[in-house]
């Protein structure tokens, strides 16, 4: 339990739980907000990247001499400009990564490993000159055979991407390199014994395709390195401090030499937790002595930033006739892209986590292929594994003629359940979300012809992590909040609301800003559904410290002991005495200089106590049997938020996750040709849902408070992308009476199955 001795779980709240306008709203709707590519500096150069045309090739030589003499070219960088790091695992935002791989992903060294892999970068006085210079760089390759799919990559005769990569996690340790980076296993009990006792067993294989987060704003940054080695970096990112640390390592600079400022962000969803352009722009700026701005095109975003894994999933579940699960087993094979680090670990950990299992096993394989290195995407790994489990569970419910919610209720994880990854779960809201789904009018609404209804649940852990923030009481009674976690989903509003609730002053007196990396201690990035939970914890704690200081100043002015002063509704109040005496925050702030100086407080902590979030989605689909097109007719997302600080933002997260899941389920996929070239590098061919594709997503917020947070907050951003994949697949299967085990459920695939079974 965290040391938050006073909590607000039982207190009547005035601000938390309301829906005030967001502090950043006006700038965003008027176009005043500055995003990654919106900033410029005098004498700025344009940076462009030369990328590999091959999916797998040895780099024989790189000759930049012709480009260097082109008028207007100011600097060129290749792998020779970056230190080569040995194999070293370091935390990289959302995942542990190998520094050797990061070095090679930002700039290819011995080999190129995917089409779009960076091989050189140029800074020039204009975009045209930079592009011309790229054409003058002469690179000689020896083309190698490539491999794109996990089932091909694990074959003994597959082209090997990394000659030094031995599979970790199998005994005896292999002596021969392969594309399988790691095997992981979670679970307990005796799975074979469980299956032997089962009345019904369903075993299926599933396929999911590689999908991109689809953030609207491409990666962009502006770097400026001065003659004395001080670097300023402006970029679109989910974690300025993480960018600082990686760039300092990659460029041999100290953390104090780089100041990173996060721009407003046009979507990230996990994809902006790693560095791509940032170290290149810094290196080009350092070499040229001028600021360098770089932006990815949409095609570059698709080919060269990190999507999430495509995968093969095998699931086997055994149940008793009453629907009780007696054994669950799965094998997950996830594409990592060109370097190890697929989110197969968390995928395996949460595959069966919504359920109270007695015999469970989840095995995962992290497999490299000639595709871009995967990055985090909302609940990394979870949607894929839980898609398989939730689909099999639906088929079992059908075979047992059980209601799909009832079978989930019968097996639902609850407080005290041992999670498949080991520890006992604290209070969670799985049962509550299922009960809310059952009671929702959507669940009992009639269906039309060719329509089907699907149900699926989802689990995500949520996290805490290193966080710091500060609060300043200004002399006019307004309040400044400096936060270190990038605001990607309305967290400035939520933080101001918690500070407002604590202080007892109106929220519009509180100005929250996102600080740069020089203004606060280290902050882990915004991801893992941690910002409202973790930064909220530091805001509450620092606000309470500021209140203590305000009370001290009032006590000084009243010449009484501190214990005679309490804080009520934005005022210090004298407890003792006949006459009620109060002093407002503004009155105290006005005299701060005379009573000891400015009033401010900081809080830095490594936050623990995150509470898992569970969700259940209901979806109705209609299948056009002539074209195979699946339309979403009605959608309801239900989720345990712990406590919704700003319910509209929680609903927004639930709706956004659901829509991204709809895209994953129905249309999105990376399509490669036989040369390993991505063929759909734009939104015309890579089909994310638009408004006309989806109905209004209805939401129900369930609140089972997280006892470790002063307001009961859990994270909400990850979980809502998990249920849609299986919920939609289950709905299509029920509408057509044909089981679908492959995503996306795009018209040609659905039509083929309708025609041929």
């Amino acid at each position, binding site marked *: *339990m965290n040391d938050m001795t006073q909590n607000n779980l039982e207190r009547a709240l005035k601000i938390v739980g309301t829906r005030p306008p967001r502090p950043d709203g006006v700038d965003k709707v008027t176009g005043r907000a500055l995003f990654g590519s919106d900033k410029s500096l005098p004498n700025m150069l344009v940076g462009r990247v030369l990328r590999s045309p091959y999916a797998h090739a040895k780099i024989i030589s790189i000759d930049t001499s012709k480009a260097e003499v082109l008028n207007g070219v100011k600097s060129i960088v290749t792998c020779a400009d970056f230190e080569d790091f040995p194999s070293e*695992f370091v*935390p990289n*935002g*959302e*995942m*542990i990564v190998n520094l050797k791989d990061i070095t090679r992903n930002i700039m290819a060294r011995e080999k190129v490993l995917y089409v779009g892999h960076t091989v050189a970068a140029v800074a020039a006085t204009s975009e045209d000159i930079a592009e011309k210079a790229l054409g003058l760089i002469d690179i000689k390759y020896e083309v190698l055979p490539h491999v794109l799919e996990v089932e091909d990559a694990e074959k003994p005769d597959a082209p090997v991407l990394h000659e030094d990569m031995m599979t970790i*996690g199998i*005994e005896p340790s292999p002596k021969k390199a392969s594309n399988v980076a790691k*095997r*992981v*296993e*979670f*679970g*307990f009990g005796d799975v074979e014994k469980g299956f032997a006792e089962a009345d019904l067993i369903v075993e299926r294989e599933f396929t999911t395709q590689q999908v991109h*987060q689809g953030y609207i704003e491409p990666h962009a940054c502006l770097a400026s390195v001065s003659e004395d080695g001080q670097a300023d970096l402006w970029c679109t990112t989910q974690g300025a401090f993480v960018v600082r640390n990686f760039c300092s390592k990659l460029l041999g600079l100290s953390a104090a030499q780089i100041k990173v400022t996060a721009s407003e962000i046009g979507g990230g*969803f*996990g*994809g902006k*937790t790693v560095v791509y352009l940032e170290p290149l722009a810094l290196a080009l700026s350092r070499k040229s002595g001028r600021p360098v701005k770089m932006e990815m095109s949409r095609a570059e975003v698709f080919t060269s930033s990190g999507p999430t894994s495509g995968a093969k999933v095998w699931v086997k579940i055994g149940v008793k006739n009453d629907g009780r699960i007696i054994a669950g087993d799965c094998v997950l094979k996830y594409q990592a892209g060109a370097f190890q680090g697929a*989110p197969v*670990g*968390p995928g395996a*950990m949460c595959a069966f986590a919504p359920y109270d299992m007695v015999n469970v*096993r*989840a095995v995962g394989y992290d497999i490299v292929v000639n595709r871009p290195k995967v990055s*985090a*995407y*909302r*609940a*990394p790994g979870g949607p894929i594994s839980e898609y398989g489990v939730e689909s099999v569970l639906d088929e079992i419910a059908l075979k047992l003629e059980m209601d799909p919610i009832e079978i989930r209720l019968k097996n639902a994880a609850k407080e005290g359940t041992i999670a498949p*990854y*080991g*520890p*006992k*779960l*604290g209070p969670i809201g799985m049962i509550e979300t299922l009960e809310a789904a059952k009671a929702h009018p959507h669940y009992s609404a009639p269906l039309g012809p060719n329509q089907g209804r699907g149900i699926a649940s989802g689990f*995500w*852990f*949520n*996290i*805490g*992590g*290193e966080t710091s923030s500060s609060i300043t009481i200004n002399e006019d009674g307004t309040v400044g909040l400096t936060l270190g976690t990038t605001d990607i989903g309305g967290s400035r509003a939520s933080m101001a609301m918690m500070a407002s609730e604590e202080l007892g002053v109106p929220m519009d007196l509180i100005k929250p800003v996102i600080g740069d990396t020089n203004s606060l201690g280290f902050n882990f990035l915004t*991801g*893992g*559904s*941690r910002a409202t939970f973790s930064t909220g914890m530091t805001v509450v704690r620092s606000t309470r410290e500021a209140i203590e200081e305000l009370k001290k100043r009032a006590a000084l002015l009243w010449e009484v002991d501190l214990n005679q002063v309490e804080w009520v509704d934005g005022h210090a109040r004298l407890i003792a005495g006949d006459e009620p005496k109060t002093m407002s925050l503004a009155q105290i702030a006005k005299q701060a200089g005379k009573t000891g100086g400015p009033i401010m407080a900081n809080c830095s902590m*490594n936050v*623990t*106590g*995150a509470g898992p979030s569970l969700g259940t989605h209901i979806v109705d689909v209609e299948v056009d049997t002539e074209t195979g097109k699946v339309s979403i007719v009605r959608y309801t997302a239900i989720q345990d938020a712990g406590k919704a600080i700003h319910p509209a933002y929680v609903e927004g997260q639930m709706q956004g996750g659901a829509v991204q899941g709809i895209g994953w389920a129905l249309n999105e996929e990376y399509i490669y040709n036989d040369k390993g070239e991505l063929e759909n590098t734009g939104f015309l061919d890579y089909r994310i849902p638009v408004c006309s594709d989806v109905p209004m997503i209805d939401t129900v917020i369930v609140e089972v408070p997280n006892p*470790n947070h002063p307001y009961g907050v859990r*994270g909400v*951003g*990850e979980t809502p992308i998990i249920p849609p994949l299986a919920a939609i697949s289950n709905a299509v299967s029920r509408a057509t009476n044909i089981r679908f085990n492959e995503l996306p459920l795009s018209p040609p695939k659905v039509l083929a199955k309708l025609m041929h079974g």
Partner: protein
Amino acid sequence: MAQLILTGSLKSLANGVAEFNIQARNVHQLVVELKQICPVLAPLIESEGFAVAIDGEIYQDILFAPIGENSEVHLIPPIGGG
């Protein structure tokens, strides 16, 4: 006495041993003790990092998270998100 419980891959690495009685009273001491009671796990934890669940609560990179006299401790991979 507090118990370290291993499941899945970690149990296999520890030659099938699922439970260890541990003296450690915080995560820092656990890392030291682990090198003695189950040395095969130490390189994995040092190279890739691990989170520790103590009585169900997950601690990532917190060396001095307290382990109670009768605590149940699990090692799990660090968890991120998107």
